[in-house]
């Protein structure tokens, strides 16, 4: 048996990332307590390096390597670039938050980088095992990140819930994959698709497998009725970690769904379409209605995430390029908004004070009208009011749904987003209509200030000129299908 070494070039950024994670860990050990920022800078350099590697080797057609287990195509590269940008922004936003709370340690950075590596593997997987390995690398890093503040009762409880439910979901997913393997005899995404198409596999076994796979996906996406972990984890985790969980992994999850459902099991579209409809409607209902009752802002945003994931799933329902690109646009818009709003929450935190309740936004307009304006843009965008980007995201998804003939689903979706408008408006109300309870000034570093302003402004500017991002989403999907 002769061994053919795999072509390493398509995976260059993953390899670079793996090396750098080790470097960051060792450098942090060597640097000692006084020079913690070394790890921070190295992490940012790593992300930049990965971005350059991915950008330079940008692939316009898909290349398989590692015996067809790993794929590099336009969608993967675009998603990865988005992930680097998001993670980098997360680090900028959370830097002063974690250093105030004694979490500025090497573990934080290496765990984040491991999670990022997991996302990259998920995005580029073309084999069910690769997908699973990427997912587990991401999930295990996230469990550890949530538990990073180990003396906090809330955080450990959240980590425990996250771990148990996450493990359950992984079990579901593996079980589903084993069914697919049983039916088709292969785990390669493209071969699975071929065999399903040829009709040589047992339909019954496949459908059972599909049910488990969809359930696993719903767990990871925090779509109802598999959403229970999300509010507790969002609330219990340190805000910096919540920001991370809520942002970049959603991009990876999009890639995950694309590889698994669309590329692998695209032939069974009529089977998973119905399941996604139920998940989407339930998510929008549970998310939007439960969010109204929340007083904790992180919990509220968790429910808001659930409802947005419902909207995201709508994009997949139409099962065509139009729908997938709309879903990609939606997830990018969503990540942009989530970054901004969690950054704003961290900004309101001071040392010794956690901004946790929606009441903490009271009178923000009087304390700092610029930040209030940024939050206003973000909230309106989450509501889906034009000219913010959130509107175009909803619009793109809705038109795909109507195009697929599900007009009633579009009506249900807008009615739930009307309910959603209420709790976003409540934040605006607190900021603009109420008086502040504290006169303490909002202190921030200039890098956070600039990035946050740019972030809020992007929500508006990308809404006024949405063509570039829409075009990019369409290109990513068209070029990879």
């Amino acid at each position, binding site marked *: 048996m002769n061994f053919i070494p795999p072509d390493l070039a398509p995976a260059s950024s993953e390899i670079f990332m793996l090396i750098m994670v080790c470097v960051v860990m060792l450098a942090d050990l060597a640097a000692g307590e006084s020079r913690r920022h070394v790890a921070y800078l190295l992490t940012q350099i790593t992300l930049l390096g990965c971005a350059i590697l991915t950008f330079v080797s940008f692939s316009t057609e898909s290349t398989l390597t590692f015996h067809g287990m790993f794929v590099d195509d336009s969608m993967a590269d675009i998603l990865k670039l988005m992930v680097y940008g998001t993670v980098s922004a997360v680090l900028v936003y959370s830097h002063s938050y974690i250093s105030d709370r004694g979490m500025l340690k090497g573990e934080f950075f290496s765990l984040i980088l491991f999670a990022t590596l997991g996302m990259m593997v998920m995005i580029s997987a073309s084999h069910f095992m690769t997908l699973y390995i990427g997912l587990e690398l991401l999930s295990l890093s996230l469990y550890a990140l949530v538990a990073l503040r180990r003396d906090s009762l809330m955080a450990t409880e959240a980590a425990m819930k996250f771990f148990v439910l996450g493990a359950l979901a992984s079990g579901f997913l593996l079980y589903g994959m084993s069914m697919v393997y049983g039916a088709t005899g292969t785990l390669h995404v493209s071969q699975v698709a071929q065999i399903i198409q040829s009709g040589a596999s047992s339909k019954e076994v496949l459908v059972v497998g599909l049910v488990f796979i969809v359930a696993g996906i719903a767990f990871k996406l925090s779509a109802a009725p598999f959403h229970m972990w999300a509010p507790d984890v969002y609330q219990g985790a340190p805000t910096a970690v919540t920001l991370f969980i809520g942002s970049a992994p959603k991009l990876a999850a999009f890639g995950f769904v694309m590889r698994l459902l669309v590329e692998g099991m695209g032939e069974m579209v009529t089977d998973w379409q119905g399941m996604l409809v139920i998940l989407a409607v339930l998510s929008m209902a549970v998310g939007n209605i439960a969010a109204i009752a929340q007083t904790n802002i992180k919990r509220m945003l968790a429910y808001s995430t659930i409802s947005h994931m419902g909207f995201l799933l709508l994009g997949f329902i139409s099962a065509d390029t139009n729908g997938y690109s709309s879903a990609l646009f939606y997830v990018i818009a969503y990540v942009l908004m989530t970054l901004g709003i969690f950054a704003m929450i961290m900004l309101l935190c001071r040392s010794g004070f956690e901004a946790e309740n929606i009441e903490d936004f009271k009178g923000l307009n009087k304390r700092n009208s610029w930040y209030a304006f940024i939050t206003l843009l973000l909230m309106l965008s989450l509501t889906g009011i034009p000219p913010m980007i959130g*509107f175009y995201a909803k619009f793109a998804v*809705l038109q795909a749904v109507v195009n697929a003939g599900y007009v009633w689903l579009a009506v249900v979706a807008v009615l739930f987003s009307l309910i959603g408008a209420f709790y976003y408006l409540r934040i605006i109300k607190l900021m603009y209509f109420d008086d502040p309870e504290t006169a303490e000034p909002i202190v921030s570093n200039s890098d956070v200030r600039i990035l946050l302003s740019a972030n809020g402004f992007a929500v508006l500017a990308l809404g006024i000129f949405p063509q570039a991002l829409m075009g990019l989403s369409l290109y990513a999907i068209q070029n990879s299908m």
Partner: protein
Amino acid sequence: MSFEFPLLSLIIWLPIVFGVAVFATGDDRNAQLARWIALIGSILGFLVAIPLYTNFDSATGAMQFLENHIWFERFNVNYHIGVDGISMPLILLNCFITPLVVVAGWEVIKERVSQYMGAFLVMSGIVNGVFSSLDAILFYVFWEASLIPMFLIIGIWGGPNRVYAAIKFFLYTLLGSLLMLIAFIYLYHASEGSFSIEDYHKLAIPMTPQILIFIAFLLAFAVKVPMWPVHTWLPDAHVEAPTGGSVVLAAILLKLGGYGFLRFSLPIAPDASHYLAEMMIVLSLIAVVYIGLIALMQADMKKLIAYSSVAHMGFVTLGFFLLNAYGIEGAMVQMISHGFISGAMFLCVGVLYDRLHSRQIADYGGVVNKMPVFAAFFMLFAMANAGLPGTSGFVGEFMVIMGAIKVNFWYAFLAATTLIFGAAYTLWMYKRVIFGAVASPAVESLQDISKREFGLLAILAISVLWIGIYPFPLTEVMHATVDQLLTHVSNSKL
């Protein structure tokens, strides 16, 4: 006829740019600067709108001052704007009201002046955008965006119950417009990838979808007009809004709904419009009669005027769905005239409120003894509100009643009762507030209107009388468009 100069874009974006400049003046240390920039911006906004009238070709019903650029290709959405005889007068009305609102808030607004003035300017530009959009998504973006400044205006500078009113206003209008969005998306697919409103006008649609589209539009526009029974947000919003907010709300924002019927419901779903016309007429008549009776019972002046707005806007929707030239033109005149009159009425209440901080009719009495000049102006506007011949209020109502009598005598009969109810609630309020003995020491201390207030009311008084006596310049520009619309609506699209 094409104009090289992007006049319409200027009319839309100039107030918005000035609004941003006003925001940029920052906190209240620069309040005076913010006021002046706002005033200059709003007056410039009106001046640049004048060529729209002088260069308007009233012989044609086609769109004029067209501009068409690609906005985003992905969904074939264009920055496509233009005006016809329906939208042009409304844009002028909007540009005319904005400086008045800025002046009305000149001394009264002391907190966060730059945000207040800026919000009005931005809203003025957005509303111009709504009236001139010829692309459904562009229209929708402007339409929804107009909610944001009004929401903040009510919520920040409003009365004690402002939060409730602001959120109710927002959610109510959002409900309607979201379904309109679905209708647009449906039409986009039905027309095979176009968001052009003019394409929708030509599009043949079967009856059932037509009715559904009509209902989706109806929800959006009926909430905005507002028609009975979805009018309940309006009295709340009006009562809690600051004076400027009430003026813009009544004079401009309600017209968005009326405009929507003419631009979307009638031409896109003509068969459904005919089919459902009776229902619409009945709803309008309920607004005219029943809301008129409710207005009679109000103890709060602003609430009374708010209900009278609903009744008057009932006339507008009544006129539209009579589907004849008198009805539609009368309704258009009524929209413009209601813009002047309701604006003036709210300003008058604002004048009293700034002095006594009460809107209750019972707190006043004998104001004429202390404020004779004000009493005279208020008298004129009250008469116009009641539809006295010689004022603009009469022209529109008379034309609509003429249109109604052609369709059905009883429609006209019920519509005409407004002349009685309108007179009753307006004049009765006027009598209780203005005449009689001086009611309290507070009234005793009243000062007559300042030069600023005099100027505001005088400009509105001239407008009201001008349209009342010589409406021809107004009706002239809309003839061709209304004729074309009627011809279009009478052709079935099935």
